[in-house]
């Protein structure tokens, strides 16, 4: 809401200008123009907005260095441009504004593509996807939605699991406000299984050995993609070409092995999460 406040400025409502010509008109009262590819190369730095507290996608390790699935991609993107990445850490709500106010060139922060966001930024091709997952005890694993009929499913309010399972009247839903409470309920045996983003349950099941993710992919898959300022076609096209090129060398599978596999373990299938060449 507060981020929206800043957007109420005189130019906040005119994000649609097309800047692909490369001219940097920077008059007062106009939205600040995104940097062109040439300007980025000349400056020697690609400014990237990343998360610093969302392990294992974007976090800071014990030496204070940015790490994670998003960061591995950012490093490669910068390297192929012949520049060094410069990270700006963002909160989820700031991801649109850092692009609109030209604080960064590209946002690589687990940014799920939604219609509302597409009106404000330009998304490139996806490099990851997220769906629902269901975690249950090893002793009584739930492997399909049919198995859940007549049983109690724990979910956190406000997640995509809530509307998804509302379609199944046979499944008793137990809702919690906090993730931590929902997990504790599962640990206490107050429900038969729990569902939320598959990336989240996979990581949790890894840390809690007596639980397993019986269903790793459920519901609509939501793409996660890099975003640039609205209208920055040159950079957008470059990133799209880069993603297609990296797909040929299975770059994101290597990225998965390096950053996500240690968290998710061998049991989970990388193809449930990784997107190669921008094709879901």
């Amino acid at each position, binding site marked *: 809401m507060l981020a929206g406040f*800043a957007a109420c400025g005189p130019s906040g409502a005119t994000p649609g200008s097309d800047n692909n010509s490369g001219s940097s008109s920077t008059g007062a*009262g106009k939205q*600040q123009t995104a940097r062109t590819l040439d300007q980025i190369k000349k400056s020697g730095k690609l400014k990237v907005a990343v998360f610093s*507290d969302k*392990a294992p996608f974007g976090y*800071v*390790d*014990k030496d204070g260095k940015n790490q994670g699935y998003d960061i591995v991609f950012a490093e490669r993107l910068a390297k192929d441009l012949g520049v060094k990445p410069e990270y700006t850490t963002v909160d989820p709500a700031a991801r649109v504004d850092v692009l609109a106010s030209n604080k960064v060139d590209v946002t690589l922060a687990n940014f799920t593509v939604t219609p509302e966001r597409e009106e404000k930024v330009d998304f490139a091709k996806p490099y990851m996807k997220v769906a629902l997952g269901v975690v249950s005890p090893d002793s009584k694993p739930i492997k399909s939605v049919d198995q859940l009929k007549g049983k109690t499913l724990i979910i956190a309010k406000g997640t995509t699991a809530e509307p998804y399972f509302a379609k199944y009247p046979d499944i008793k839903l137990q809702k919690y406000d906090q993730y931590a409470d929902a997990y504790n309920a599962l640990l206490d045996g107050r429900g038969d299984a729990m569902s939320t983003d598959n990336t989240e349950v996979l990581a949790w099941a890894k*840390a809690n050995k007596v639980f397993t993710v019986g269903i790793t992919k459920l519901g609509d898959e939501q793409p996660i993609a890099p975003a640039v300022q609205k209208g920055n076609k040159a950079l957008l096209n470059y990133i799209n070409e880069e993603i297609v090129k990296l797909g040929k060398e299975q770059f994101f599978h290597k990225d998965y092995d390096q950053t996500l596999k240690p968290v998710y373990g061998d049991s989970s299938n990388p193809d449930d999460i990784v997107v190669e060449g921008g094709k879901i």
Partner: protein
Amino acid sequence: MHGAEILLQPGVFPRLLQGLWVTIWIAGVSVLLSLPVGLVVGWLMTLRNPIVRFIMRVYLDFIRIMPQLALLFIAFYGFARAFNWNLDATGACVLVFVLWGGAELGDLVRGALESIPRTQYESAQVLGLNSWQTFSRVILPQALRRLLPASVNLITRIVKTTSLAALLGVIEVIKVGQQIIDANRFQYPDATLWIYGVIFFMYFFVCWPLSIVARRLEKRWAHD
């Protein structure tokens, strides 16, 4: 006690201290710059010129009514969009905290100056002091004494409010704490309490000496 072990992990404490240094730097620079701004603003507020008074009134009320977070977002995102004035996050914080500190301190200075009785000015003039001597030798020492408790209060508020800088992406002590908690959430799920506990003591040991100095000065000046 499992969560407490996180504090012994290599890198955890040095990084928190680095974050604390960013906090202290922003607060320190803001306070140092606020002092001259506040003194000038306070002096301007005591002037009888109606235009100056009106401008100062608007300035003080605007800063006082706006939440600091809103001011920070305007300085960081709003200026970049509206005026193409791209401040970095630390710069935006210092700007907002100086404007805020200057306004609040200015009002304190005004109150302190106006609380000095008329007779003090008149007595000084009768003793043959010129107007600068009156101000620097008679009025200012008394005003400073009245100013001190409220100013220390303001400084500690500035120190604590620097935590909002984390929302602009500044890696200060709170943000470092969140990063450490998250990076360790699988190994140390209950690290939150311990990290925030340490941060609590860090803020405490920054603000506490200020209170001590203020109390000492007040005591000493009480016997002058």
